[in-house]
């Protein structure tokens, strides 16, 4: 299980900007940048204390496999973790760092 990088200096919100193309394999990117239907593993969540705690209590946390289901361009998207579907905004998805297989 990948551990949280405890010494990460990124402040919440200062995550990598959405890129034009999709990230290549094995690359660490955000949930925004993986295509629909693809899966990845959550590496870190940098959403600030409050949202981090909320996401973690909902089961959205580092180490989990996540599948991106559908997305509305730069609008909200649906993801699946452990068989449960969640919806979140583009902005929040940008704070969830994932690693593609």
């Amino acid at each position: 299980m990948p551990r949280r990088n405890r010494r990460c200096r990124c402040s919440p919100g200062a995550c990598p900007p959405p890129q034009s193309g999709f990230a290549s394999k094995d690359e660490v990117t955000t949930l925004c940048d993986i295509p629909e239907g693809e899966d990845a593993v959550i590496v870190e969540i940098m959403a600030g204390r409050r949202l981090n705690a909320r996401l973690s209590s909902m089961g959205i946390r580092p180490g989990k496999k996540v599948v991106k289901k559908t997305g509305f361009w730069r609008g909200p998207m649906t993801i699946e973790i452990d068989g449960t579907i969640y919806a979140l905004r583009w902005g929040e998805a940008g704070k969830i760092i994932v690693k593609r297989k």
Partner: protein
Amino acid sequence: MSTDEIGKIKVALAGNPNVGKSVIFNAITGAHQHVGNWPGVTVEKKVGKRRHGEANLEVVDLPGTYSLTAYSLDEVVTRDYIINEKPDVVVQVVDATNLERNLYLTTQLMELGARVVIALTMCDIAEERGDSIDVKKLSHLIETPVVETRAYEGKNVGTLLDEVVREATRKEHHHHTVGYGKELEEKITTVERLLEKDVPLAEKMPLRWSAVKLLEGDEEVTKRIAGSTGEKEILKIQDETPFELIEAEIADKRYEAIDAVLSQCHRRGERKLTMSDMMDRVFTNKWLGIPLFLALIWAAFQITFTAGAPLMELIDMGVGALAGLVTENVPGWFGFLLGDGIIGGVGAVVIFLPNILLLFLMLALLEESGYMARAAFIMDKLMYSLGLHGKSFIPLLMGFGCSVPAVMATRTIDDKKDRFITILVTPFASCGARLPVYIILAGTFFGRNAGNIIFGLYALGVIVAVLSAKLFRSTLFRGSPAPFVMEMPPYRAPKPRAVFRSTWNNGRMYLKKAGTIILAGVVVVWILASFGITPGGEFGMVDYGGEESLTAHIGKFMEPLFKPLGFDWKIAVALIFGFVAKEIVIGSLGVLYGAGEEGLSAALASDPAFNPAVALGLMVFVLLYMPCMAVVATIKKETGSWGWTAFSIAYSTGIAWLLAFAAVKIGILIGIGG
């Protein structure tokens, strides 16, 4: 304890959202429920009773939560109840399809020192998915009773209650905890020791839980220790503690403990494509989602209004006949009060019951089928750009039916700012009661264009709501809408019983409103319209709503305010009456013109004070001015503040005046003011 000493057992029902908690609650308590609010907050509190064997159970339904942090109102309500009221048993409803996440709440309930009994639901769905759960082993490993429950069929509810009674009457309680690792445990112990020093405080709060929360920097718990013996030292420890890291570490440890248990008794099947997945591919598709959403909403509204119409006519006729009968047979002023005032006035509101019931039926179907969460998802982007939240959409939509349930529906919005903005703008959605006003006025003065005018009014309502939301977001409630993270429950066929229960509960509340606040309102209006200074200079009964009545005096007193809009005293009176319910505007004009509702159209057309420009202004004013009495009362209840209620009244009436003024002037400019 022997069985005859059991007596009363306090049971609290907890669990994640969407796990079927209300189904279990209904299965346990049946019809013996009472719905109210938690003290000081507008989170709904349901309490029910059940006799099980020798025991009298009092069951409290706690809000659905994922965790017990201080970040959300629901979570604070839940944990405060458990700490302060000390229920004998906490039944946690656990969704078998996502055990890991559900057990995360269990670890926290246990840390609070609660005696937990788990009601396992959705086992059939988990089975379909190919998961296998060894319930006995799970129960053994977490040393907590676990009962597989199928509440829809009423299955195993008895077994669940047996376990509840057994757990409540057991003498010893083994306190379960998750170990947080050497370093953290040392800190926890230090804080626990410090807490122990203040004996009265320590008796009230679960020590270990409080210590953990203090290390997480929980503000509520930190407030609680203010003034205690160990406060200074605890604050010093807090200063040295990186809360965010501790919070993450604690979450990790809890999940580790859960994983350790689940690895021994739970096997996740290969995930197959389910019906729900396939539906989601269509309903949340980026191309199909919005058109399907619009089609569904359109259909729901069509059914609400077309199917409701014949029923409404029936009630209308019944009310009319009853009022006539009473006025003829009950002598004196009391007959008029009863017939014209009470039956007519309350009847005007009861007429909308079919619409309201159908609207709630449609909403219950959308909710129970799991589509409502998708609707919020689809609308979030648009709502966000307007400074609102995806969940604000539902109340706005309901506002086209009736603003009362719409304002109540804002309860689903967690963030206070998002919620208040939604409450303030929802009344601008043109409710069903305003339609009769448009039909008469547009029909009389705009002939073939009436349809376009009415559509324009609905659009104006939406535009004002949207612009107001933007304005509030940039002034009164600065900041971004709260993050949108929402669980999408699986689609399922709505259960008739749940749908009817929800429809009826809402309809009942509407009727209750008609019987209380509206009843009081119409009596006041009737008195004002019936009494006045007679030509002889005495105070007494005068022509109902005529020139001598108190209402006319009020109308004339208010006239200068309405003069710039071209409204005379009769319109002013009608608008004042409209506060009781907006459709009363038409009824009042009917009385004041002495024409009844049928002849009103001709009477208005021949009145020189009226012209298309004034009619347009009046319609705009009726659309936007202060919400009716029932909505005002609901806003007060939901915001918990007279200040915001007054603001809502002042703001909407101010906007109404300005835009009605503009409408009249534009009307005169384009030559319809003559």
